[in-house]
C-alpha cells in the first residue's frame, strides 16, 4: 500500500519535473516514454539486469564481509587504526576512473574488476558505521567484561560487536543503496554487458529513454535491496532485546 503511494508520488514528481522545468525528452524523458522503453526493451533489460544483479549481490556480500572485518580489526588495534584510517579515507577519495586502469591491469577484464569496484564503494560506509558503533560501546559493559577476565579480543567479539549491531545495520542500509551504483560503476571498467554498459551505450546513442529505463531497473534493485535490508534490520533489532 505504502509502496504504491510511494510509486505514485515518485512518478508524479517526475512528471511534474518534466512539465514544470520544461525538460526536453532528450534530457529527461517523462514517465510514459520511459515506461514504453522499459516495455519494448524488456528482454534486453532482463538480460543485462541479471548480470548486474549478480555483481551487486557479490559486491554486497564481499563488501559487507570485508567492511565488517576491517572495522573489527581496526577496533581491535586502535594504533593500526590511526595509521590505516587515513589510507582508507584516501581510497574513497580517489575517483574511480583513475583506478579503472589499475584495476583492469590487476584483475583483468572479467567479473573480478567489476566486483572489486563495487566492493570498494560499499566497503567504506560499512566499515565507518560499524567502527563508530564499536567505539561507542557503553563503558560499564566493557568494564564488567574486563573484570571478568576477558581478553580485549573476547570483549570485542562478545560485547562490543553485539552492542554495535545497530550501527552495523545502519551501515548495511547505506551499503544496500550503494551496491547497485557500485556495480554500475564497476561495469564502466571494461564491460560489454550489464546495465551500466547499457546505460552508457544508450546515453551515447541518443536513446535517452532506454537509458532511463535502465536507470529505473537499477533503482528498483536499490529500493528492493534497501527494503530487504531494512526489513531484516528491523526484525533483528526487534528480536535483539526481547
Amino acid at each position, binding site marked *: 500500500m505504502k509502496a504504491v503511494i510511494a510509486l505514485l508520488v515518485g512518478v508524479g514528481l517526475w512528471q511534474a519535473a518534466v512539465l514544470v522545468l520544461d525538460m*526536453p*525528452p*532528450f*534530457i529527461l524523458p517523462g514517465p510514459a516514454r520511459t515506461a514504453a522503453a522499459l516495455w519494448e526493451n524488456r*528482454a*534486453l533489460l532482463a538480460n543485462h539486469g541479471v548480470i548486474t544483479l549478480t555483481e551487486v549481490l557479490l559486491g554486497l556480500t564481499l563488501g559487507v564481509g570485508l567492511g565488517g572485518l576491517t572495522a573489527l580489526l581496526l577496533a581491535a588495534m586502535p594504533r593500526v587504526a590511526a595509521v590505516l584510517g587515513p589510507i582508507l579515507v584516501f581510497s574513497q577519495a580517489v575517483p574511480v*576512473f583513475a583506478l*579503472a*586502469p589499475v584495476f*583492469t*591491469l590487476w584483475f*583483468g*577484464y572479467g567479473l573480478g574488476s567489476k566486483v572489486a569496484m563495487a566492493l570498494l564503494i560499499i566497503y567504506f560506509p560499512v566499515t565507518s558505521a560499524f567502527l563508530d558503533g564499536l567505539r561507542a560501546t557503553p563503558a560499564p559493559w566493557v568494564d564488567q567484561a574486563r573484570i571478568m577476565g576477558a581478553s580485549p579480543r573476547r570483549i570485542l567479539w562478545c560485547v562490543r560487536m553485539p552492542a554495535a549491531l545497530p550501527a552495523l545495520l545502519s551501515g548495511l542500509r547505506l551499503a544496500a543503496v550503494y551496491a547497485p551504483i557500485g556495480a554500475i560503476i564497476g*561495469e*564502466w*571498467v*571494461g*564491460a*560489454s554487458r550489464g546495465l*551500466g*554498459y*547499457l546505460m*552508457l*551505450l*544508450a*546515453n*551515447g*546513442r*541518443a*536513446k535517452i529513454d532506454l537509458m532511463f529505463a535502465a536507470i529505473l531497473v537499477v533503482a528498483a534493485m536499490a529500493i528492493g535491496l534497501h527494503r530487504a535490508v531494512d526489513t531484516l534490520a528491523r526484525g533483528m533489532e526487534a528480536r535483539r532485546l526481547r
Partner: protein
Amino acid sequence: ADRLTVMLDWFVNPDHGPLIIAEHEGFFADEGLEVELVAPADPADPPKMAAAGRADIAVSYQPQLHLQVAEGLPLKRVGTLIATPLNCLLVLKDGPIHDIADLRGRRVGFSVAGVEEAMLGAMLAPAGMGMDDVEMVNVNWSLSPALMSGQVDAVIGAFRNFELNQMKIEGVEGRCFYPEESGVPSYDELIYVANPDLVNPKVIARFLAATERAVQFMVNHPEESWAIFAAHAPELNDALNAMAWDDTLPRFALRPAALDAGRYARFERFLSDRGLIEGVRPVSDLAVAPDGGE
C-alpha cells in the same frame, strides 16, 4: 591460433564495423587469429592497456597518440581504422552561428579529450579570433544535449557520423564545421596502436589483413554487412546506428596497414606549434607500417 586482445576506444558502435565483420565472416580465423574485443568506458584507457601489455592492440585516436608518445608511453600506431577526421565543430542548423566568425563571445562546449583547444584555436584563427574570444565549457557527458537545449552555442568533439544523426533523430538539425577544412591538418580519427616491444609485427600484419578484407566486404555489401552488425548484439540494432553506418562506411581505411608518414609529421608539427607537446618526434617514433611480407 594466436590469441589477440583488442581493446576498443568505446563500446561497440559502427566505427568498429570492420572488427565485427571480420570476426563474423571468419576473416580473423582465416588468419589464424582468435580475437577478443574488450570495451572500456573511458577512451583514455585503451592505449594505456596496450602500452602495459594488457591488450595487444588498442583502438585509439591519432591526436591522442601524439600526446601519449610525447609523455613517454611506449606506443606506436600500427594500423588505421578510420582514415579521416570524425571530430567536428557542431552548431544548430537554425541557430545563430552561420559562420565560424559568429562564435565571437559565444559558448563552446567540449568534452575533455586533450586537443580540442588546439583544434578550435586553429579553426578560429582564420576568422581573426583567438581562444579568448569564446567561452569554453566542459560539458563532458552531454555534448549534443547541451547544444540542443541551447546551453552552449557550439560543441567541439562531436563525431560527424553520430551527433549529427542523433540530433536529426531528436528533430533538432545540426551543422558541422569540419576541422580539416578550417585550418587543422587532416588526420586519422581511429587508429590501431600497440606496444611495439610486446606484439609480434607478423601477428599485427595478419590482423590488419583480416580487417582489410572486412572493409572490402563492407564496401561491396553494405546492406548485408549492416545486417551482420545489427545482429551482433540486440542493443546495436537501432535507427541511429543504421544512419551512422552509412555515414561511416566511406571513411574506413581501405588500406589499414598503409602509413601516410606525412600526415603524422604534419600533425606532430601542428600540436607542437600549438604548445601541446614539446618539440617534434620523428614519424618513426609515432607510427610503423607492419611488414606483412613473409
